[in-house]
């Protein structure tokens, strides 16, 4: 009898272990598939851009001409600059607002109201980017052109960055819409991170007589790595965003725009614009090459972000230990 029980127990244990083993294998397989997928993407992008890589080589990223009609010379420098600039504008405007929302939700307002506010903010993330584009064309652009940009120009017009004709669309407009698009991502992740800060921290600071503002600062410093991670997620979205930017930036291939109000171009936008009607092989290859460049830049941004997160994580740990 006794031996039987222990036998069934062993079988049961064995099954359990086998189940664990299977689960482990399946999980590993999924994880591996992701890595394989990334590898496959790099391979395909490289293969597709091979012609262009042969013709332009690494100089592609420094090239400043885009001529599909006569010379078939292609270069991506203006596109790279356009992508980075619009993303930077988006971060400059979106990050303070997002962190503000995050702090409000985690520190200031009651949970139920917070739930409602965060629901509304996250709703922004559910709007398709083509809708942002259309809204930009028909609502935001007329508003900015008539009610905002002229005043900016009146104040800052002496700076070359804010001079020149105002069309409505352009670098700044694209940046503003991008900012709106990345706010839900950054704010919801930073809210989660800020809420995860242990209450003991807040209580300790308050017990020392800190004001609410000082408490927020301490909470922020504790949550810094997570918030940076959130910002990077937003940056990733801004860099890759295609449709809304394409509809708003004016799509002009030039090395530098004359001002923030001028039209420019981004990597994602030129692919969306020109891929379907690109017929010559070099042309198609150059567009895929732009895709490869976009991929690599996203990769670099992510690596840098990782490094920052690690570094601050170590710093924060050091602080809390001290």
């Amino acid at each position, binding site marked *: 009898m006794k031996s039987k029980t222990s036998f069934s127990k062993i079988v049961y244990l064995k099954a359990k272990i086998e189940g664990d083993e299977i689960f482990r294998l399946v999980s590993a397989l999924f994880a591996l598939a992701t890595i394989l997928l990334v590898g496959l993407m790099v391979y395909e992008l490289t293969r597709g851009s091979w012609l262009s890589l042969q013709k332009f080589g690494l100089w592609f990223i420094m090239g400043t001409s885009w001529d599909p009609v006569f010379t078939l010379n292609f270069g991506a420098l203006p596109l790279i600059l356009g992508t980075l600039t619009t993303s930077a504008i988006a971060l400059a405007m979106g990050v303070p607002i997002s962190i503000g929302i995050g702090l409000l939700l985690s520190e200031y307002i009651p949970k139920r109201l917070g739930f409602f506010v965060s629901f509304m903010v996250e709703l922004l993330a559910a709007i398709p980017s083509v809708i942002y584009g259309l809204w930009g064309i028909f609502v935001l652009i007329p508003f900015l052109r008539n009610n905002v940009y002229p005043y900016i120009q009146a104040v800052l017009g002496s700076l070359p960055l804010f001079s020149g004709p105002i069309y409505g669309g352009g670098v700044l407009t694209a940046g503003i819409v991008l900012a709106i698009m990345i706010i839900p991502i950054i704010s919801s992740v930073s809210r989660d991170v800020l809420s995860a800060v242990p209450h003991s921290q807040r209580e300790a600071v308050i017990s020392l007589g800190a004001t609410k503002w000082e408490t927020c600062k301490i909470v922020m410093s504790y949550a810094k790595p997570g918030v940076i991670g959130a910002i990077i997620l937003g940056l990733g979205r801004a860099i890759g965003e295609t449709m809304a930017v394409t509809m708003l930036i004016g799509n002009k291939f030039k090395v530098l725009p004359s001002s923030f109000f001028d*039209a420019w171009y981004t990597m994602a936008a030129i692919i969306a614009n020109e891929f*379907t009607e690109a017929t010559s092989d070099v042309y198609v290859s150059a567009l895929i090459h732009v895709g490869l460049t976009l991929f690599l830049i996203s990769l670099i941004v992510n690596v840098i972000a990782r490094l920052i997160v690690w570094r601050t994580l170590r710093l924060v740990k050091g602080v809390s230990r001290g």
Partner: protein
Amino acid sequence: MDLNRNRKIFLVAVTAIITIGLVIAYPYLIPAEPEREITINGAGASFPFPLVDKWIAEYNKVKKNVKINYQSIGSGGGIRQHTEKTVYFAASDAPLTPSQAANASNTLHIPFTIGGVAIIYNLPGVPKDIKFSGEILVDIFMGKISKWNDPKLVELNPNVNLPDKDIIVVHRSDGSGTTFVFTSYLSEVSEEWKANIGRGTVVNWPVGLGGKGNEGVAGLVSQNPYSVGYVEFIYAKKNNIAWGYLKNAAGSFVEPSLDSFRAAAAVAAVTLPKGYESWAEVSIIRDVVRNTQAVDAYPITSFSYFLVYKELNVLPNMDEYTARQLVEFLWWTIHDGQNYSAELDYVPLPSNVVARNEETIRMITFNGKQLKG
């Protein structure tokens, strides 16, 4: 035992009856050419998509077993898929260039509909019907004419109070047949344009803003006072956007309309090549720009083409039945199909173009066998 024997006899009888029945019914059950379900895949230009889509729906009522699948991925994509032989037919707003034709040898061109490009503008407080000429359009899109009250514009529009405002030029940013047609026109009227900017689905615009799609251009034009741009006529008409008149070689000012496009196509139809010849040089635009008699013709007009292989056995998975159905569909589009054109604002083909297409479709073969008698 008896029971068993009875059962045996019964079984044999039933089997015999079924067999005999099948033998008798055989010719009725399996027709000479099976009316089986087939799918014909096509891809290409987005400009004629609403028309092709309508055709597909209507043709399915006529031929229930033939399903046609058309992906509007753009002319460039259509030509690529045709070259790679992944579709049975492609549609393109431009004929194959010599190098494209070399990659897809034995391609037939079947012009199946006609479209045009309208010049749209936004001039607050100015009545509609501004007049343009080819030279003025070239100058505007090159940035040489930068003010609305430029003497050249004033000369064409003496009764209009043109404002002293900068012209904001708007063009397509995405690769598009519309841009190809429009820049073909500018290249035709100006050697300078031809040499420096050229024609293409995307060109290096010297000035202006780029909008994505017809809606992007129309949006930018409607949002920016004192702007000018170009869109497909159908888009301008459906959305009630003011368009300009254009001076043709006969000296008359013509507005884009189904009639003026048809008149333009009729000019070009006189000199169309055979279906198997090179169509690279076919251009309604050129013919209208050079024809001083065509009073009613609007110059920025172009064909959309079906591209089909002359010998269909070059396509993988093609069989004679499917090939025959493809040919029947093409035949239908240039005849009955044309009846649906006008209601969708496409131009029905002139009769001499239909005649040329009939000739072309009769050339299509499968394993050397003619498919349409």
